[in-house]
């Protein structure tokens, strides 16, 4: 795209250069025409001097043969003058056409005709002794002027196209810059989330060791000494709490999830994974009623369990967040013609139709600025499709949304 634009610009530049060059040439030609025409006028007027035509009160100097000879010398080879008419000023009578001498005879309306020509007065000092009427052949000049006009229009068009193209590119560049800025911000957010994940993993790892020590110490204390009952009960409580921590840790396998370890696929029970995902994000549940519909018998699915947990927890977490601690979340699993279908329905505000078709796109979030990265559903969709399944959503504004995840049943 960028290369095509550059080619166009180069083409425009070449055309513009050509047009400028041609315009320059034409202006030079026009200047030359005008100079030569001026030279012609000067030459002709110089030749028809008072010595040839005679002053107004001098009729004897006039020689028609001499004028005709001058005319034959000056005009037939001239590219700028179609014809000239020479008039002599006669004292007390005004102008009379003397070249061609029969002009007034052939054209009784000669004064009217000559009014259409360009008149150049012949003077000696202050005395006007005649005039030369030029019938200029301006066809070449008009052609050049026409060509100049056409080229100028072409040049303006080309420049307009170039400017338009540059504007478009500048606008695209601005848009891209803005988008890049947004992406940069998103990347920073992702980096922050990633760092948070890493920190979480490290914290879990670091907490496990002292807790293991606590558990060992508690077990040693319980087995080694005869303790009073209240103390033993307290120690039992401590041991149970620690066990609970490890069971939760084991149950969620959260460390693996956070670290993203790439384990192999395994046959998983989707219903169990759904419950584990629900448990994983229960901290956001608030007062939301969670209804897990009894799961009929359904075949297992060959998948990465932690990834499916990621998908389910992501959708459930979204549902919790949009319901803001109120409403109902319904989870169901069913088997349908070789598919295991999971439905997660909430009674939240629903999704606007304008947003609905974009929610699986990366960095698209209706909760921008509220902590949403816009990647959750995009990643979920990628995981489901990687497993050979589909994910889709149905929503009604004011009534809620239903996410349907279809996963291929293992054979």
């Amino acid at each position, binding site marked *: 795209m960028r290369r095509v634009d550059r080619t166009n610009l180069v083409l425009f530049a070449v055309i513009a250069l050509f047009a400028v060059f041609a315009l320059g040439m034409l202006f030079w030609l026009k200047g030359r025409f005008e100079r030569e025409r001026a030279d012609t006028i000067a030459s002709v007027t110089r030749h028809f001097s008072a010595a040839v035509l005679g002053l107004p009160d001098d009729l004897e100097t006039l020689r*028609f043969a001499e004028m005709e000879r001058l005319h034959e010398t000056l005009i037939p080879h001239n590219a700028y003058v179609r014809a000239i008419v020479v008039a002599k000023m006669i004292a007390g009578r005004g102008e009379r056409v003397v070249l061609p001498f029969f*002009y007034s*005879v052939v054209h009784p309306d000669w004064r009217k005709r000559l009014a259409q020509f360009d008149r150049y007065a012949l003077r000696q000092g202050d005395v006007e002794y005649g005039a030369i009427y030029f019938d200029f052949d301006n066809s070449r000049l008009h052609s050049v002027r026409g060509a100049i006009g056409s080229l100028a229009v072409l040049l303006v068009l080309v420049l307009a196209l170039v400017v338009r193209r540059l504007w478009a590119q500048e606008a695209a560049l601005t848009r891209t810059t803005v988008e890049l800025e947004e992406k940069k911000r998103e990347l920073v957010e992702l980096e922050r989330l990633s760092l948070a994940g890493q920190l979480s993993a490290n914290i879990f790892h670091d907490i496990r060791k002292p807790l293991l020590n606590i558990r060992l110490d508690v077990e040693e204390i319980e087995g080694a000494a005869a303790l009073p009952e209240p103390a033993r009960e307290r120690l039992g409580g401590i041991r149970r709490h620690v066990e609970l921590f490890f069971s939760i840790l084991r149950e969620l396998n959260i460390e693996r999830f956070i670290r993203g370890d790439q384990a192999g696929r395994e046959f998983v029970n989707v219903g169990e994974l759904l419950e584990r995902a629900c448990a994983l994000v229960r901290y956001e549940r608030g007062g939301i009623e969670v209804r897990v519909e009894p799961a009929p018998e359904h075949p297992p699915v060959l998948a990465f369990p932690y990834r499916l947990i990621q998908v389910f927890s992501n959708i459930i977490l979204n549902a919790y967040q949009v319901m803001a601690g109120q409403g109902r979340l319904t989870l169901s699993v069913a088997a349908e013609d070789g598919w295991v279908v999971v439905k997660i329905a909430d009674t939240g505000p629903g999704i606007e139709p304008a947003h609905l078709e974009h929610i699986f796109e990366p960095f698209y979030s209706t909760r921008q600025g509220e902590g949403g990265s816009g990647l959750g559903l995009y990643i979920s969709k990628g995981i489901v499709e990687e497993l050979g399944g589909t994910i889709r959503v149905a929503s009604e504004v004011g009534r809620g949304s239903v996410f349907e995840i279809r996963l291929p049943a293992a054979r």
Partner: protein
Amino acid sequence: MGASKATRSWRLNGDARTAAVVSWLAAILVVLSGAAGRLVPQIPPADSPGVSESRRLFLVGHMRSATTDGLSEDWFRRLHRFLERDQALRAALDRDGYRGLGMVSAEGFNDLVQRMEDPRGLDCVFCPALAYVRQLGDYTVVFQLKGPNDRGIGKYILHSGIIFINSYHPLFRGTRAKTEEVPLRLIARDFASSPVALISSYSAAGYIYPCNELFQSGIRALPNQPIFCGSSEEVVKMVLSDVVEMGVCEQGAIEDVWQRQDIRVPVGEVLDVLRTTPGAPTDPVVFRRRFRPADSELGRRLKDALTQFFSLDRPGQIRLEDSDDGAFKGLRDAWNEFTTHTEESNAVEAR
């Protein structure tokens, strides 16, 4: 003493040497001038004594601006080259003691007449008819020039003059009333008071005859504002372009101009010929009497050479027709009449 003699001797020798050098230089100059004279024919002025009586040039004269169309300077140069190449003519010139043939271009009418009156002046002249009539030298007419519009009457070539006006002139009659002749007095009065285009003051058909014609009206018909144009064609153009309203030229000139410029407007719509004069003889070619072809070998050779040249090169369709002095008797009478009228008019004016 010896030294003094030696010094004087040296001085004498020095003077003698200087005199010798000067003599040599003079001799070289004389030789060089003679050589230059042979290379380029020297045209002696009319009042100069001539180079040498025995070895002078045979001079052919003409007017610088010939009234007859076509006989230009360039044409006379061609004639000169042609005559110089004519072996028989050269031999005849040599026999008569001439060292060659020269062309003399006279500055004007009076210069030509003066050169013709000089006994050692021009030997053959292409002259205006009036110049032949007015000169006092002993010339005889050999040829008359005949243009396409000139007519032969008997054995002589004549052409008439015309007085014409353009359509802006008050006497212009248009095409409808041409049968009615304009009174001579009206023409003569206008002729004498308004600018009139004429060929020249020495043109027989273009000046002398029309003036004589108008003198008959009793009005002094010499134009008060004459515009001498040099040729009939120029006169026609002058009147047609309305620089002047009246003109006098040789008959046929209008038709010539019309034909040459292919003018489609009928002549009668724009020009009106008021009077046509009696025929005047056309310009002659005259020889000194001693070279009359009947008596002189040189005259015969020159006549033959001119005839031959005119058969090859005829500018403006001009031909040479044999003629004699009798053709110009009428013109001589007309000239006398003209001078008489002019003198009378001048006398009246002076009173």
